[in-house]
């Protein structure tokens, strides 16, 4: 994929302010290519669903 750099995982455990610390993975796609790359992630389906109902049964 264009713009993909070496896969990195920082190993640092980070949390903005709270009690939970998590391992943060770094982006693999260069900044200039990200908009197109995110848009390429969409999935075509033949139907739409109410997502909130679909996962939470409301």
């Amino acid at each position, binding site marked *: 994929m264009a713009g993909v750099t070496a896969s990195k995982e920082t190993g640092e455990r980070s949390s903005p302010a709270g009690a*939970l610390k998590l391992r*943060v993975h770094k982006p693999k796609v260069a900044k200039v290519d990200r908009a197109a790359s*995110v848009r390429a992630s969409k*999935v075509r389906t*033949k139907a739409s669903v109410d997502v909130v109902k679909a996962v939470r049964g409301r």
Partner: protein
Amino acid sequence: MSPGGRPPLTHNVVAFNPAGGAPVLAGVVLDTSFVADALLVGQPRHAACLGFLSFLAVWGTTVYFNRLLELELAEVAYKVAIKVRFGTRRARQMRTDGRALRRASRLADRLAPNWEGALANFSWARAEIEDVVDELPALMRRGLASYDAVHAATALKLGVGHLVTTDSGFGLVRQPDLTIVTDQSLLVACRRHRKRSI
């Protein structure tokens, strides 16, 4: 006073697609509803959600989410597959039909790698369900369903101030604790929950 009167109180609920441009945020927690709407073409809020997801990637926002999100994405794939095969009216009774299961499996198989593809554009971190269980009872006592409570608890436990969602039910989280970032069309519903839950 301006001609339009006083602007409405935000109740700590903001739009990710306001007229003035999307908010730039250092870190956000993502809810399943937003990710599914962003990834699945044909969803009513697909364009707005995918646009904001791209915006977050370009601005280098760190995204946090709970493992539950990935399980719920599979559930969405399953529901879509049943509706494609049998229509909305028969969806419930055909839940275990083999034809729907095969279709669901194929759709889930496509959705999962595409979610991983989207993640490659972000600094990201995943919390586990067991990381947040101690926060759940208090949130559920406010009226949140268990699934919603897991995502809200992830934001609270991490200290991330913003949760991106297309589910207005997150308005039940205490106002000072969390800013809800949602679609413009859901602001009123989400703020109504906030007013009720003070």
